[in-house]
């Protein structure tokens, strides 16, 4: 549909670098590209500054001073949890870059607290404050921001290099096109509209757009993160459940259940409700907890519950690849994807390089968003410069299909809401996604493949529906890469729990690369990635 309207864009812009997504990864990318002299446009589905999961939630950051011992501990701490798929040289780079950039935040005026000894404490960022500051900084750097402007498809030139994107303003209906030398996907992960805190803008759009241009995914089997929240609420902040007791309805303690052993909570939830109470937090800690994470307490205060003294029902909400680790495959230290002109950062890019198959709770994710954002911005700007004036001569074409184009004349109108419910029915249930089995995965994939065909042969009847239709397509595509990869990983590693293969298998210590649209494929790849193209971005 859009494709046939290429002359019909109300807003037609040119840029050296286009950044799609304005969370931490996108804003760091935009800032570093603009700081290296590029003309940058950043588009966001929502409002850059409030949207995405960091703005709503806040982040603990993997901020470790360059002290060899502290760095060693930091690197060693997650290696086994992640199933030994991470790479120490990437960890070193991320630790260095994050340290430099978080210090930069302090220079920009982020109000970091001081600790007991009066030293600045920089391991925690309050979301609204952090992202308001990032918006201000990129505006200062000259980045042009288009809010409320989801990207719908990428543009590709004759040689297959990515050359920008098109989209629509969801409030005015105006269509936009940005022709750019290089493009960065920073659209976050995919949480399948589960209403986990801040996650409903994260529907995997960037994965779909990238795949349509030919990019590959990596680690999509590590995509089943579930966050604990009060059953009635969206607030999937999990840190304080370290001090929780989990009980059955009658108040007896559930053996073994803890925030680190969520599988026991999930198993119990399959049979009956689970309750929690934050009763292990000493009285003296409680005021500190309120000051550390004010939004953790919001739902309780509003529902009239004192979580320290009253039990409340909890649930596990799917956070998918947001706190999982899979995403677009990164081919070198510049954060390039496997397609020319296309870079990926933050949750949209695979995080296996530093976390292996497990991230779950905090700090690595925020650090990855900061550093991969920073590197992708720098390298995209460099790549754009290397193209010179080439861009103005090239012909470009939109490469989006599903949910954008009408099928044949006989195609059905697309039942978007039903498609979304159907994909949720395959990815939300713990018995399907948390506790995976060969049979369950195969059945789900059958249904998901069928949904894809349905999307393929349906027609989007109005421009208003475009955005939701593309989100639906992106979620179905994401789920297919997830489960196709999960079937291939015949073992239990990282967050991938395979009931038929409950042990870790030393012969499967590799990455699983996936891709494809009508035909999804998966192949394994040995651990070490290609060597650096150039040394980019040692420090800010």
């Amino acid at each position, binding site marked *: 549909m859009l494709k046939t309207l290429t002359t019909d864009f109300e807003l037609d812009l040119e840029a050296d670098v286009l950044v799609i997504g304005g969370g931490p990864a996108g804003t760091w990318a935009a800032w570093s590209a603009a700081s290296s002299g590029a003309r940058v446009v950043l588009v966001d589905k929502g409002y850059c500054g409030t949207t995405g999961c960091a703005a709503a939630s806040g982040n603990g950051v993997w901020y470790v001073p360059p002290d060899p011992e502290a760095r060693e501990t930091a690197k060693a701490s997650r290696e086994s949890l992640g199933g030994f798929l991470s790479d120490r040289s990437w960890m070193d780079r991320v630790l260095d870059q994050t340290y430099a950039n978080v210090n930069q935040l302090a220079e920009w005026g982020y109000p970091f607290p001081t600790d007991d000894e009066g030293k600045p404490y920089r391991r925690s960022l309050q979301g609204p404050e952090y992202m308001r500051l990032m918006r201000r900084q990129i505006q200062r750097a000259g980045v042009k921001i288009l809010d409320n402007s989801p990207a719908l498809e990428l543009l590709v030139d004759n040689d297959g290099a990515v050359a920008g994107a098109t989209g629509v303003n969801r409030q005015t209906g105006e269509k936009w096109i940005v022709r750019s030398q290089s493009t960065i996907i920073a659209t976050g992960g995919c949480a399948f509209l589960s209403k986990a805190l801040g996650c409903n*803008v994260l529907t995997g759009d960037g994965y779909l757009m990238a795949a349509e241009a030919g990019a590959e995914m990596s680690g999509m089997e590590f995509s089943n993160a579930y966050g604990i929240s009060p059953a*009635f609420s969206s607030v999937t902040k999990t840190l304080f459940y370290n001090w929780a007791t989990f009980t059955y309805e009658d108040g007896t303690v559930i053996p073994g259940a803890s925030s680190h052993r969520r599988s026991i909570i999930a198993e119990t939830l399959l049979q009956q409700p689970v309750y929690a109470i934050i009763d292990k937090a000493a009285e003296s800690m409680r005021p500190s907890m309120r000051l550390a994470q004010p939004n953790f307490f919001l739902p309780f205060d509003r529902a009239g519950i004192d979580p320290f003294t009253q039990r409340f029902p909890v649930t596990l909400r799917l956070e998918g690849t947001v706190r999982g680790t899979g995403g677009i495959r990164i081919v070198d230290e510049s954060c390039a994807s496997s397609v020319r002109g296309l870079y990926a950062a933050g949750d949209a890019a695979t995080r296996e390089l530093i976390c292996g198959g497990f991230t779950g709770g905090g700090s690595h994710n925020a650090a990855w968003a900061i550093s991969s954002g920073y590197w992708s911005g720098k390298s995209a700007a460099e790549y754009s410069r290397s193209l010179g004036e080439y861009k103005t001569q090239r012909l470009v074409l939109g490469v989006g299909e599903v949910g954008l184009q009408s099928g044949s004349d006989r195609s059905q109108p697309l039942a978007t809401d039903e498609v979304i419910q159907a994909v949720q029915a395959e990815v939300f249930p713990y018995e399907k996604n948390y506790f995976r089995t060969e049979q369950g995965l195969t059945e789900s994939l059958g249904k998901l493949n069928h949904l894809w065909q349905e999307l393929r042969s349906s027609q989007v009847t109005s421009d208003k529906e475009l955005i939701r239709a593309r989100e639906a397509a992106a979620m179905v595509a994401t789920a297919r890469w997830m489960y196709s990869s999960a079937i291939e990983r015949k073992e239990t590693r990282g967050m991938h729990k395979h009931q038929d293969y409950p042990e870790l298998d030393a012969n499967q210590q590799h990455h699983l690369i996936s891709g494809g649209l009508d035909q999804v494929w998966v192949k394994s790849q040995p651990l070490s990635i290609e060597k650096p193209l150039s040394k980019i971005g040692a420090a800010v």
Partner: protein
Amino acid sequence: MIELVSESRCIKCNICVNICPTNVFDRVADAPPTIARQSDCQTCYMCELYCPVDALYVAPESDVTASVNEAELVEVGLLGSYRENIGWGHKRTSTAKADQTFQILKQMK
């Protein structure tokens, strides 16, 4: 989910329309915005933070609607409570400076 746009408080600045991540509000000429797509609300509370006059209330229930009464919310101090907690708003200082995460993490060992 978002449950209230206070008619009496709203100054029709349309900031909430602009900043809601999931495009829940519609602007209306010479009137407060309407909650046009309530079921899209992701219960993120961001609109409350950005509303300059505490005219919005997001109920904690994320999957079902709740009925709220403005006068009661004011009385129990819930209207604008998130902004107050994090020190956003005129003449307030951000509580980010008072973040006590370091105290919490010390207890984690």
